[in-house]
């Protein structure tokens, strides 16, 4: 139980820090940029659970993100149903689809999930692009209502910022809790040695599917938040490029670190705002980051910081996974 209190304290600290930041910003526009980073962070945390703890890779998480966003958009705009209905439907749909994909593929070893998610991602992208009557096609879908919960309309960018920050904090808390629980230990066992886990009697497929669906659900939550923030969705934000960007965020932040994932998301979302020329070398940079991290810094920023701290402390003892 102390573990939980420690996690709670960490998350509370994070929330306080995040809440104070908007005071520093001079411009409404930057608040939105940060809100987007936190939305990306929600996906990154989930993906990090999948990659760092279950040792699987998904190359189609952008599709879960987009599927939820579009579902909520269509339900709330075209069908004019309440926002909560749209959001729940979006999240539920993604959960079901992820489960259906996970069952057959996670029983197979190695890179089959990568391929399945890749194929799935591309199919979703094409379907969204082509079903113009439903989704607006390549030109996108406009007029999504801004989020209204229990009568309160999140009209100002600042209010939305706080909402997303709180949801991110909850997501982080859930994830930290998961890692420090029995499920987390089972996952780490699987990651270390699948054969050994089998021997102890862990149902590997079941845990992998669980983590996969959870990570998809996080992406879905982020998706509906995105749709009702920007009030506009277009296929180009949900394609393979974004799936790769998400993987890069997790790798950069550190694959078995929740806080690393958040940092990675913040870094890669906020960076383009500074570097004007970044727009041209974006792809190049992501590729370079992935390669460099894998070759030189497999633990990402989190791993690098851990190593740094170890050096500073004089190598007292190390703990894998934060």
């Amino acid at each position: 139980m102390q573990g939980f209190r420690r996690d709670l304290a960490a998350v509370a600290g994070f929330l306080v820090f995040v809440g104070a930041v908007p005071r520093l910003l001079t411009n409404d526009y930057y608040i939105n940029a940060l809100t987007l980073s936190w939305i990306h962070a929600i996906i990154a945390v989930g993906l990090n659970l999948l990659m760092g703890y279950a040792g699987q890779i998904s190359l189609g998480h952008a599709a879960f993100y987009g599927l939820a966003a579009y579902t909520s958009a269509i339900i709330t705009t075209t069908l004019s149903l309440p926002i909560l209905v749209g959001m729940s439907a979006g999240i539920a749909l993604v959960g079901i689809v992820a489960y259906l994909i996970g069952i057959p593929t996670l029983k197979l070893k190695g890179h089959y999930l990568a391929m399945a998610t890749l194929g799935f991602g591309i199919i979703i992208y094409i379907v969204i692009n082509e079903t113009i009557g439903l989704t607006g096609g390549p030109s996108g879908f406009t007029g999504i209502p801004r989020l209204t919960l229990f009568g309160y309309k999140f009209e100002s960018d600042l209010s939305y910022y706080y909402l997303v920050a709180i949801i991110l904090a909850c997501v982080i808390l859930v994830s930290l809790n998961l890692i420090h629980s029995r499920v987390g230990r089972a996952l780490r066992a699987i990651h270390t040695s699948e054969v050994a886990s089998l021997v102890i009697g862990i149902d590997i497929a079941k845990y992998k599917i669980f983590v996969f669906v959870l990570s998809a659900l996080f992406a879905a939550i982020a998706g509906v938040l995105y749709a009702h923030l920007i009030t506009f969705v277009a296929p180009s934000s949900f394609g393979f490029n974004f799936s790769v960007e998400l993987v890069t965020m997790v790798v950069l932040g550190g694959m078995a670190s929740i806080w690393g994932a958040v940092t990675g998301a913040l870094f890669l979302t906020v960076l383009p705002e500074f570097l004007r020329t970044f727009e041209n070398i974006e792809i190049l940079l992501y590729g370079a980051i992935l390669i460099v991290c894998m070759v030189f810094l497999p633990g990402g920023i989190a791993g690098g910081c851990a190593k740094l701290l170890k050096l500073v402390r004089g190598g007292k003892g190390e703990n894998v996974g934060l």
Partner: protein
Amino acid sequence: MGISSYLQFLVSGLTVGSTYGLTALGFTIIFNTTGIINFAQGEFVMLGGMLSVFFLKWLHLGLPLSVLFSLLVTTLVGAAIEQFTIKPVKDSSVINLIIVTIGVSIFTRGLAMLIWGKDTFALPQFSGSAPLTFGGVAVTTQSIWILAITLSLLFLLRAFFTKTIYGKGMLACSYDRKASYLVGIGVQKMVLLSFMISALVGAVGGAILAPVTMTSYDVGILLGLKGFAACIIGGLGNPFGAAAGGLLLGVLESFGAGVISSAYKDAFAFLVLLILLFVKPSGLFGQTRVERV
């Protein structure tokens, strides 16, 4: 739609399918030797086309020389990738290796974009653009080149793997790396060779297809993915299956576009991939050797 339309779809399908097959072949060669899926395979195909354009339009080398040089350079790029990005992480987990190859893929694409821009480029057909007509079905001379070159390459590779010592060495690695190492096969050299051959094969696919479909810095993604789908269709690890899978995929895609809907053309490849992964992951010609957890 008359029979000539269907035959036309068949011809278009086989033409594009050849490149899918060659890309799939590249995947298979690396997979067989190293166990890695090289996500950057599609970029070899892109480089084959783009470098040919570069040598032709910027350096004015004439078509045959441009293509030859592009094949050479791409092969060297394959070697460089193996040396600088794969070798350092060869003992890492599967997921790390996948990430590295993804990184290489997008890095290569980014580099191509910086050097050549985002424009689309056309390569002239190898022997003029007048099509030949057989009973209502138009076949471009390029299609004939494509099929001829693909088949010859397949025969050459088959001879290489079964008759030469290097080829046999690579096959040995695919069966059992430790055993190969023990009998004195330079496994690292085989890995390097596999990357070079895959790069070459991919580049050939890119260069011969570019006159038909035009090329740009980002054609690698889709071509690579479809090549991979072709691999799975034919059975991962089976070179003959990969080539056959590619042709099959091309034809399926062409018919799907012509008969069902041209808008969802690209989706067919991945739909087939998903169905196969769920129903028969070992593919049409693969051994049921896929491990279950």
